């Protein structure tokens, strides 16, 4: 569709690897009906599908081979997440990836094995309040906003003493429904033993970047639907896609998507090329800030461009907006990540 769309800052090997991921995820990327059917169920996703995804190696995609993962990079995780976002797959692959990275670093093997196989659903309960990027390490603090918590078998609770594991059965957990048909959990603490040490920052960054990619995939799918609508719907005796005002709005959507892709793929490539520390976090922050903001803009513009039909729950475009409403703030929203970017990133050179 456009000359630069296919030119990521990826090597030929990375591009080939990404293509293979895309192919393997094609089934989920197109099955929005599956995602629709799972909305507002308990736990809001399919445990069978989660297990299949484990079998496909997706939960351990970015986990080192030594720890039982596939040892692939962020390019692959980002590509997978994008495809999952296209199909609105509700399975908590990204939160599970975060947990897998932490368990691998902590050297815990048993639960990690179950998680990578998709048999255990291990979610990390890292935040104690809204609008923060700082993991809470206070063992006594209530943990909030745990995505898809209703389906968890275990929670990872990072504490000063190390990473602790909480079994979901018997945990003091409350879940609230979210607009995408899933749920967010609040977990009141109990005391557990540490299973090892793990640094949260880099793993949270990877989850944030993957979430940005998920939102990117969703934006593209919603926009494709919207373009198709603009190309068929008639009003006042004309295809509405001929109206210049709507054309220009569509272009603005396209630009937001292009900027998101540029930021997401730049960050993925840089992380895989060995960028770490503040420089890596700054790139991730830019990608997540853009994706969080763009997904809301794109979602609401696609609803607007779809007119009345866009406001019905039957029409899939709305599902993408509801997903953006839920995911845009997770792992940090636009304002938070922009502030972090400025803090972490050196100024541009004086001109």
């Amino acid at each position, binding site marked *: 569709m456009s000359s630069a769309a296919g030119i990521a800052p990826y090597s030929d090997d990375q591009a080939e690897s990404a293509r293979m991921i895309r192919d393997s995820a094609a089934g989920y990327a197109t099955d929005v009906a599956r995602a629709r059917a799972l909305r507002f169920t308990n736990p809001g996703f399919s445990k069978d599908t989660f297990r299949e995804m484990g079998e496909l190696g997706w939960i351990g995609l970015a986990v080192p081979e030594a720890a039982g993962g596939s040892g692939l990079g962020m390019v692959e995780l980002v590509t997978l997440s994008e495809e999952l976002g296209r199909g609105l797959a509700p399975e908590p692959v990204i939160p599970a990836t975060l947990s897998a990275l932490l368990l691998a670093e902590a050297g815990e093997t048993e639960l990690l094995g179950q998680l990578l196989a998709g048999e255990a659903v291990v979610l990390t309960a890292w935040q104690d309040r809204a609008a923060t990027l700082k993991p809470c390490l206070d063992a006594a603090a209530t943990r909030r906003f745990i995505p898809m918590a209703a389906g968890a078998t275990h929670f990872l609770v990072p504490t000063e003493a190390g990473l602790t594991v909480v079994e979901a059965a018997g945990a003091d957990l409350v879940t609230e429904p979210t607009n995408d048909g899933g749920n967010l959990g609040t977990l009141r603490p109990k005391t557990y033993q540490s299973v090892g040490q793990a640094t949260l920052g880099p793993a949270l960054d990877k989850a944030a970047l993957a979430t940005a990619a998920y939102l990117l995939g969703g934006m593209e799918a919603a926009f494709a639907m919207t373009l198709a609508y603009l190309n068929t719907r008639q009003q006042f005796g004309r295809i509405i896609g001929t109206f210049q005002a709507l054309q220009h709005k569509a272009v603005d959507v396209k630009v937001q998507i292009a900027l998101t892709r540029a930021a997401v793929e730049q960050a993925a490539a840089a992380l895989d090329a060995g960028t770490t520390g503040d420089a890596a976090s700054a790139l991730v922050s830019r990608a997540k800030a853009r994706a969080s903001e763009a997904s809301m803009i794109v979602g609401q513009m696609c*609803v607007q461009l779809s007119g*009345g039909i866009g*406001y019905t729950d*039957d029409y899939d475009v709305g599902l993408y907006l509801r997903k953006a409403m839920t995911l845009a703030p997770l792992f940090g929203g636009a304002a938070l990540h922009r502030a972090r970017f400025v803090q972490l990133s050196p100024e541009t050179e004086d001109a």
Partner: protein
Amino acid sequence: MNAIAGTEPEDLNALDDDSFRLVVRRWIEANYPPELRNPPKRLHWEENNPWYFKLAEKGWLCPGWPREYGGLGLGPIKQIIFTEELERWGCARSNDHGIIMLGPLLIRYGSEEQKKYYLPKILSGEHVWCQGYSEPNSGSDLASLRTSAVLDGDEYVVNGQKIWTTLASDANWIFLLVRTDPTAKKQEGISFLLVDMNTPGITVRPIINLEMHDEFCEVFFDNVRVPKANLVGQLNKGWDMAKALLSFERIYLGSPRQSAYALTRLKQLAEKMGVFEDPSFATTYAKLRTDFEDLKALYGRYVEVLKRGQPLGADVSQLKIVQSELFQRITETMMAIAAENAGLMEPMEGNRNLNPAGLYIQARPTTIYGGTSEIQRNIIAKNVLGLPG
């Protein structure tokens, strides 16, 4: 005479505006069911009818209708005050298509028989009306409607489909725009028909919208037979009658009430989230507040036009643009400061007024319904700015 309660209502027009406002306010506060204040969604008939009947009993159901037809005969300013007081107290909007749309239309265009038959039944709540204008393939282009009514003996046979019919599942009557002359140009050949929803051949299917609410419906007509007497006004002149009623809609849709409600919620949310100390939020909030006050000032000018008994021009469309876009911006700010709470379906921690996602979603269609923002801009460009077609 008051057609329902049988008692003469006080002459509220004799009061000065401030006294009138106080009388209305006191009565609302004393009589409105407290559990229905600020409902997060449009209420259904069964939820709302206690209040509906209370208004009817008081003789205040149709404040804009002339007194001879059971209304209060209020002037435009008192009507606006009346509405403001309802909004101030967070009263639910009633099933008001009979009151707001059909009543005034019948009073202006209906036959004496029609007035005598239908108006009292609106006032009593016996007839609950819905409005059948939009169709799947018309949308903002209302004049392209295709639902047909063909005369067969003494009855029209109606076939077609209406959509976005607000609360059709609660209504027992529907007023329709139908095509009665398929050969005429778009706006011509359209007639205005009253249809009992219990007539065989009518199917109502609720549409779940993005609020997960069944406020709107599709209504299907399959060889529905409607007595010829149910035609209002002249055959093929329905478009002009419906259009005459729309100027009211345009100022109504430009009323600052939605933005006022949202701004109050934003303030409460900001307090809860503790962001008022953040000067960045303070700047955003200041912008929204001044934008709101400017909208109110602009709205006030149109109210003044009504007050002076002058017609509203096409430029009233700008009110709707400003109000709907401001309402949306306020709710977008709510989503931003709500952070992770923005994902929640239900109101935050039991305060049903704090539902950022709900309000954000409610704000979305305001730039679509009643003519999209694009249509409004087209109207202003051509009819106000005089730009070429």
